[in-house]
């Protein structure tokens, strides 16, 4: 037994555990439940609820020698204190004798439950938490059946307090455990809720505007040990025991959070199955037990009545619904006749199976296939990505994390959270961006460069690492030298690379520079080291891995002279209506889509695709973890999974493809693509014991987060990890064009106006209208005040937005949230003209 391990006895079981471990955890590890309410294994103990009262006996020691004193039978003399103690705040030591289920301990626990019930309404029959509620379970266990407390004097308080429009508080049910307050403060650092008042009037209040303003607010409803906090989508929506649980992967960003889709047949939906709520599924390597509010609330799009349900073909200029057989025939004919110069364009939200079959089909028809994106880095991720054995949760003292050109909180909230926590554990965080982002709060060093200078900034760091004098000219902003030193000295270093302020050309240079920096500092080819691209879509990495890459030229040029266009999971005409003019009028267009997008309006054949809730498939996260999602509900209308539609067309055109199952497509991928050689659905379903154990019967500890019994996915190895040499290259920066006036830079907002977010009525109020962010100098020059309307012209189009002035934005730069229909994928030159208020608006 090592000295860091201690031996103790709990309820007669002898066990070993690390010295100083909380008694509640030591017991849990040995499979002994200690009832808790305020304690949560992800947060510091506070000892407030007093539920975990236990008897603790400590061996007497000789004052001089420190040796145990022995009784006449040579057994250590154990001293039990006069009081019960809280297991959640007590750290274990050698030789303890603990009773969790003794008569005395149980009596104490029973008394606490009785106290809690004097205030609690016991409205379990109408409570959303009923069936998965720790207080309900303990009431059943300890409750005497008859209340000694005067029923008429029970607490009466507000039953519906909307902390925000997403989270509703029932003040009668709250047991003041502060888990929600502590989560917001300790875990996510959005301290927007607090206790107010005192004693029995102690109540949760929010003081943000809008209420409970946090991207992580939904997690508080999981860890709430009673039915006090509920999400407005699930409130009175169902009983937990009526729900089926399907494992899935969140489709909104490249983190790949493990989720559960709870489904039920719904009368209002004609008896069909619908998703009632989304909950986190534990994966300590990916999302622990948390998800962001976008993942939790933006799911209704998949069940939206606007979804395409039937194949369509264009007849006499109009789209008409038709049968699959007919639509497939028309599509095949069209491709035969017009497919001489075929372009296939796919989006990064499709699954690996879809993207693989897409590539196979277009290739089989001698067409060109591309990924509808501009950001570079997929290849480098294959070469020097994180690899097996990595876990952001392992980073801490001695390690470094670099985040460049990304507003991680908006782009990938759970990565933001895990990077923040790594920094709090002692990892040195370097945040490099052209503007302030919230992550800077936790950074050891902040590097602020001019918009567009991200590659040069990294090259400047490289200068300090290698001493390469040709890079001298790039070493010009504060923090480069110190950052270079931190990265060089770090045991492990992970670099998150985003696309903010980049165009396709500078994104390439940025990833090359980042790769060179990681290689020069020897942070490649080993676990917990390497690159993580912060993609704009969830499965962009999967697309790269399936062989799809962004266009070399501007998309407009790619569209010119095409005779046919095949679109899957992307909407180039919606993203930029100007593109319609680029594609020849007679080009034959096939679209596989969920919704009737502007691209569908241009289509000759439209195939309704299934969403992620209706089918299975795999996604590859930015960390290159391949994860499996399962079907949760029956398909919408006649929709089919993308990979299957492609295989059926292929069959008509003589391109042989796997058409039986998604798992079958993955088998083909495994044969065909080296990195995926070991990936099969069976292995993706593997599970591992995780700490802390949540879900299942231990709902006291994890709340309603699900345990992971359907697969934790597989982390792909990087080429560098497999011993392949990585040859860093970097390019000199081109001369910057001078005096081009104002540049408009697209930025990411978590709640964007994308097709997957807009149908969520819940998030609608949080999306807001896009504002043009402008610096003080430009605002002053144009005589603009906050909220004033401005007309912005770029690329021959004009748009109007209200302005928001931000002192942090330099002259000559304006920011606009990414949005459909704007045609603003990358930074570009623009003109600003203030809009004069009309006489009506002046208030006549």
């Amino acid at each position, binding site marked *: 037994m090592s000295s860091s391990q201690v031996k103790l006895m709990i309820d007669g079981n002898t066990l070993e555990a690390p010295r100083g471990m909380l008694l509640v955890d030591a017991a849990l590890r040995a499979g002994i439940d200690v009832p808790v309410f305020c304690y949560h294994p992800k947060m510091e*103990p506070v000892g407030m609820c007093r539920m975990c009262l236990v008897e603790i006996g400590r061996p007497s020691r000789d004052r001089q020698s420190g040796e145990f004193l022995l009784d006449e039978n040579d057994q250590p003399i154990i001293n039990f204190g006069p009081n019960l103690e809280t297991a959640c705040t007590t750290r274990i030591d050698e030789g303890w004798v603990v009773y969790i289920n003794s008569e005395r301990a149980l009596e104490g626990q029973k008394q*606490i439950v009785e106290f809690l019930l004097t205030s609690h309404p016991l409205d379990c029959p109408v409570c959303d938490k009923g069936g998965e509620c720790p207080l309900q379970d303990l009431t059943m266990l300890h409750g005497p059946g008859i209340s000694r407390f005067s029923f008429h004097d029970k607490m009466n308080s507000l039953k519906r307090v909307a902390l925000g429009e997403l989270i509703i508080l029932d003040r009668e049910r709250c047991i003041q455990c502060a888990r929600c307050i502590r989560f917001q403060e300790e875990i996510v650092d959005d301290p927007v809720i607090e*206790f107010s008042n*005192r*004693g029995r009037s102690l109540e949760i209040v929010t003081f943000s505007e809008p209420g409970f303003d946090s991207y992580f607010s939904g997690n508080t409803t999981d860890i709430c040990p009673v039915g006090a906090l509920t999400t407005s989508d699930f409130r009175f929506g169902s009983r937990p025991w009526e729900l089926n649980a399907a494992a899935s992967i969140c489709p909104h960003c490249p983190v790949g959070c493990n989720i559960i889709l709870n489904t039920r047949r719904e009368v209002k939906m004609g008896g069909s199955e619908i998703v009632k709520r989304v909950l986190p599924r534990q994966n300590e390597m990916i999302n622990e037990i948390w998800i962001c509010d976008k993942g939790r609330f933006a799911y209704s799009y998949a069940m939206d009545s606007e979804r395409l349900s039937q194949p369509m073909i264009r007849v006499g200029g109009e789209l008409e619904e038709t049968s699959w057989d007919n639509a497939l025939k028309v599509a095949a004919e069209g491709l035969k006749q017009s497919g001489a110069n075929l372009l296939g364009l796919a989006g990064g939200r499709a699954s690996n199976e879809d993207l693989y079959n897409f590539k196979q089909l277009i290739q089989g028809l001698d067409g060109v296939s591309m990924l509808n994106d501009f950001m570079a880095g997929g290849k480098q991720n294959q070469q020097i990505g994180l690899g097996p054995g990595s876990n952001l949760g392992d980073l801490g003292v001695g390690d470094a994390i670099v985040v460049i050109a990304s507003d991680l909180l908006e782009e990938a909230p759970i990565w933001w959270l895990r990077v923040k926590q790594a920094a709090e554990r002692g990892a040195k965080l370097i945040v490099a961006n052209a503007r302030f982002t919230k992550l800077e709060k936790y950074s050891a060093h902040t590097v602020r460069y001019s918009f567009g200078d991200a590659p040069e900034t990294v090259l400047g760091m490289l200068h300090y690492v290698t001493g390469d004098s040709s890079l001298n000219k790039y070493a010009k902003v504060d923090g480069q030298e110190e950052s270079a030193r931190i990265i060089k000295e770090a045991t492990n270093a992970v670099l998150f690379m985003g696309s903010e302020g980049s165009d396709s050309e500078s994104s390439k240079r940025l990833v090359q520079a980042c790769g060179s920096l990681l290689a020069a500092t020897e942070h490649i080819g080993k676990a917990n080291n390497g690159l993580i691209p912060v993609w704009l879509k969830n499965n962009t990495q999967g697309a790269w891995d399936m062989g799809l890459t962004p266009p070399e030229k501007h998309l407009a040029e790619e569209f010119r002279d095409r005779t046919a266009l095949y679109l899957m999971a992307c909407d180039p005409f919606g993203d930029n209506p100007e593109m319609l003019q680029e594609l020849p009028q007679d080009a034959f267009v096939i679209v596989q889509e969920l919704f009737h997008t502007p691209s569908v309006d241009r289509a000759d054949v439209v195939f309704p695709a299934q969403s992620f809730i209706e089918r299975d498939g795999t996604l590859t996260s930015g960390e290159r973890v391949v994860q499996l999602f399962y079907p949760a509900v029956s398909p919408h209308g006649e929709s089919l999974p993308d990979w299957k539609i492609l295989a059926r067309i292929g069959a008509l055109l003589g391109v042989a493809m796997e058409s039986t199952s998604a798992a079958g497509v993955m088998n083909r991928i495994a044969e065909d693509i080296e990195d995926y050689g070991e990936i099969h659905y069976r292995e993706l379903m593997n599970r591992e014991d995780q700490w802390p154990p949540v879900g299942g019967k231990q709902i006291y500890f994890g709340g309603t987060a699900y345990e992971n019994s359907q697969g934790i996915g597989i982390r792909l190895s990087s080429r560098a990890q497999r011993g392949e040499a990585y040859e860093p290259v970097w390019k000199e920066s081109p001369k910057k064009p001078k005096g081009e006036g104002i540049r408009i830079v697209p930025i990411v907002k978590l709640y964007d106006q994308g097709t997957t977010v807009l149908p969520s009525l819940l998030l609608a109020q949080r999306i807001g209208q896009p504002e043009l962010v402008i610096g003080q100098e430009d605002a002053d020059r144009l005589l603009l005040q906050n909220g004033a309307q401005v007309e912005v012209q770029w690329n021959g189009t004009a748009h109007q937005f209200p302005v928001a002035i931000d002192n942090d934005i330099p002259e000559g730069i304006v920011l606009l949230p990414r949005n459909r229909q704007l045609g603003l994928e990358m930074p570009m030159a623009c003109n600003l003209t203030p809009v004069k208020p009309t006489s009506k608006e002046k208030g006549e």
Partner: protein
Amino acid sequence: MSELILFRHLDIPDINDLDVYLANGGFKGLREIVGKKSPQEVVDIVKASGLRGRGGAGFPTGVKWSFLTPDVFPRYVVINADESEPGAFKDREIMERNPYQLLEGIAICCYAAQAQTAYIYCRGEFWDLAKELDEKIAELKDRGFLGKKLFGEKFDLEIYIHVGAGAYICGEETALLESLEGKLGMPRLRPPFPAAEGLFAKPTVVNNVETLANLPPIITRGADWFRSIGTEKSSGTKIFSLSGHIAKPGNYELPLGTSFRELIYDNGNGIPNGNAIKAILPAGASAPLLPASEEILDTGMDYESVSKAGSQLGSASIIVMDETVDISWVAYKTTKFFNHESCGKCTPCREGTYWMFNVMQHIKNGEGTFDDLATLNSVAESIVGKCLCALGDFSTMALTSGIEYFQEDFNAHLREKV
């Protein structure tokens, strides 16, 4: 009457004038140590004096200081002037009438604790007093008793006043620290104790006003002199706040160990209207009441003797009740008080204080039954020893001792359950 150590304003009425204070040996104690004695030597003197915390717990002051985590700076000294115990009004008189002795005591404490900053946490209702103290602190700074390099030595000191928002719980030292940090006044989990992680997570000494006011005379006259006053284990004098049915209520500074009889009859001139004494609450609302008897009256008021008699000396706010008092009314008042003051952080206190008050309300309204006494005792038992801080335990004391000694007072309001 014995010598006055703390209430020197009774001998020298103008001692709240700095020049008068200086003329009467003021700041001699501080001058004797700054640059002349090491902080450890000061800690040793205070340990040797046997001075115990006057806030209520009676913990040896020098020992408390010696728990400060070594080599961690800055450190803070926080003065608990949240005097909120029902029947306690001693700290207020020190601060009003003999303020410089307290301020000198704070300086001595800071020197011993190697702290450069002290905060006086005043209860919210002391706003006028806080203003006066602010003026006195400014004056001390002008006159070179506060600020940088005091007496030309390597000792900097600033004292600040902070006024609370009116919560009894903020007299509990960790809740006080939370409040001082601008947070909701709720006790912290211990350990870590303030000596390790106190104000702003730095090593902190928290001492009561009266405790620190004892320091200047201990330094100038020595530990042995101090030990010669009071009892062996409870040395020095204590200010007893005497109230209730008493002919001459007020603060009385007497040696620890002085009997209840001497305080009540010799100093307080006994019970008015020729009534008989019925019970004593020796520590405000926070400790069991003592039924008056010859034996109790002859009990010495020191930490050990009162404890042996079945209660606590606490802050020595002695509330005397004569034969006209209905003890169930007293229990009603104390449960009402604690229900109002419970911070709500831990379950047994939050719910238990409400429950006890709820039952006492029914009893007071004539709706109580004999079963209620058993309920009260069992609720109290469910609270005691299970709370996060001592307030929970306190809340049961007057009630359960009242039922134990004066059940007939309760019975008079009760009926059989129908």
